């Protein structure tokens, strides 16, 4: 696969075109906003957290396929998880997206693969300027989680 084919995998375009949990939450959810001023991408996140567990979530985003797909994939995974589990997930995502010497090609079935669809985002690592696109939703989630502990 060429770099571009790896970047724009079908699952990514599917999430881009059909983002999950699109919308707003009624009531008084935790709310966080993220933006990449350098490209104009935006991500708005609503969460309900009860007993340290995310019970509902919704997003509104604006931006490129990578930022929106990354956000949509994230939305697929967070309801039902505890704050600690989510912090761990953010950490795993960061590790996956970090560029290191001798990156192996994408391998969704590698042992220990726990990120599901998200693994498709590994193609972004070949496009370092786009990593911040993939990061946006997760940085916003991190900010939202910070509000739960305060």
């Amino acid at each position, binding site marked *: 696969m*060429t*770099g*571009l*084919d790896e*970047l*724009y995998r079908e699952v990514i*375009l599917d999430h881009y*075109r059909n983002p999950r949990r699109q919308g707003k939450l009624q009531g008084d959810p935790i709310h966080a906003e993220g933006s990449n001023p350098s*490209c*104009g*991408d935006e991500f708005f996140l609503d969460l309900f957290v009860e007993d340290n567990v995310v019970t509902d979530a919704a997003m509104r985003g*604006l*931006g*490129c*396929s*990578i930022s929106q797909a990354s956000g949509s994939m994230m939305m697929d995974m967070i309801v039902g998880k505890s704050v600690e589990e989510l912090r761990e997930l953010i950490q795993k995502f960061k590790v996956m997206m970090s560029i290191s010497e001798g990156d192996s090609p994408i391998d969704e079935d590698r042992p220990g693969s726990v990120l599901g669809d998200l693994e498709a985002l590994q193609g972004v690592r070949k*496009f370092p*300027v*786009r990593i911040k*696109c993939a990061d946006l939703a997760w940085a916003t989630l991190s900010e939202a989680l910070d509000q739960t502990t305060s």
Partner: protein
Amino acid sequence: MTDLRALRSDFPILDREINGHPLIYLDSAATTQKPDSVLDAMDEYYRLYNANVHRGAHTLATEATELYEGSRSKVARFIGAEPDQLVFTRGTTTAINYIAYGWGLNHLKEGDKILVTIMEHHANLVPWQLISRYTGAELVYLELNDDLTVDTSTLDQVLTDDVAIVAFSGMSNVTGALGPIDVLAEAARSVGAISVLDGAQLVPHTPVDVADLGVDFLAFSAHKMLGPTGIGALWGKPERLEEMEPTEGGGEMINTVERNESTWAPVPHKFEAGTPPIAEAIGFGAAVDYLDAVGMDTIAAHEREITAYTLDRLSEIPDLTIYGPRDVTLRGSAVSFELGDVHPHDIATILDQDGIAVRAGHHCARPLMKYLKIPATARASFYLYNVPEEVDALVESLYKARKLFGLT
């Protein structure tokens, strides 16, 4: 087609490969590439003549001053002006801010209006917003026609005696639309307002003579016309420059300095506080020499042709929307477009894989984007070194983008 192909060898960066492909640089509206002669002029300055200008009694200082002032004469002549009407600034942005502070802070009052158009670059909006905070003046806008040229039919409604400044662009960096310079210059005069022309995209691409423009001020940047970063120019009618206060205080711009007050040097020096961008001025001079040698008429003709070709070729592509006039007599060579639901940033990434540099984003024109109800566009923009094969490559890559995004 006006063939300037031979000039390409003057631009060293055009030999570069990007992602295994020869660079196809379609981002000249952001900044242009530089010919050897410009780089050599600056290098030679530093290697042989470098000294601070003015007030120097030694040989290097004299030579540096002559080169610096010589460049002022060249740039002034390039726009049909006298050297003492031409202020070197850091760029268009600084030039417009100088007017905003130097003229605005001293002339605007509560209730005054600053008339702008919705297609302005932030450089011709935010300075007026800043100065409005301090003076109580207010921005009013002209909107656009269907072809995205400025709609002047509402002028009678917005053009009141309160209008103190009319500020507008000669050419939009997003849509390529030319500004209605004559109409707005005349409108400003009719209510005793000053007119400010943002020439960042105009001066590089078309012959300009300030005597014909009819405006009070003109701002432009060297880096958008083959020159270096760090320098631009503010031209003003003599009487306007006289009534303007300096924005920056410091060395070289003074006549006398007492403990509590100072008097200013004559125009243009009163606006050039401190050590100016000397090497950059010399590079700017070399850039206008280069443009003069090619001929601005030739350049304008070349761009009209390549723009027409681009508009034609892009129109072939399914799902592609062009934002801007189709009539090449109403526009310049910055061509903005959308391609179905492929986000402009994705377009830029895909094109970059083929060595093609285009810009994606709001192009520092958020009010225009909001007006057009789009978050961003992709933009291809051209200059004298571009050739039609590069447009063909662009079109081919856009088909690749369609395919990658499964558009059929």
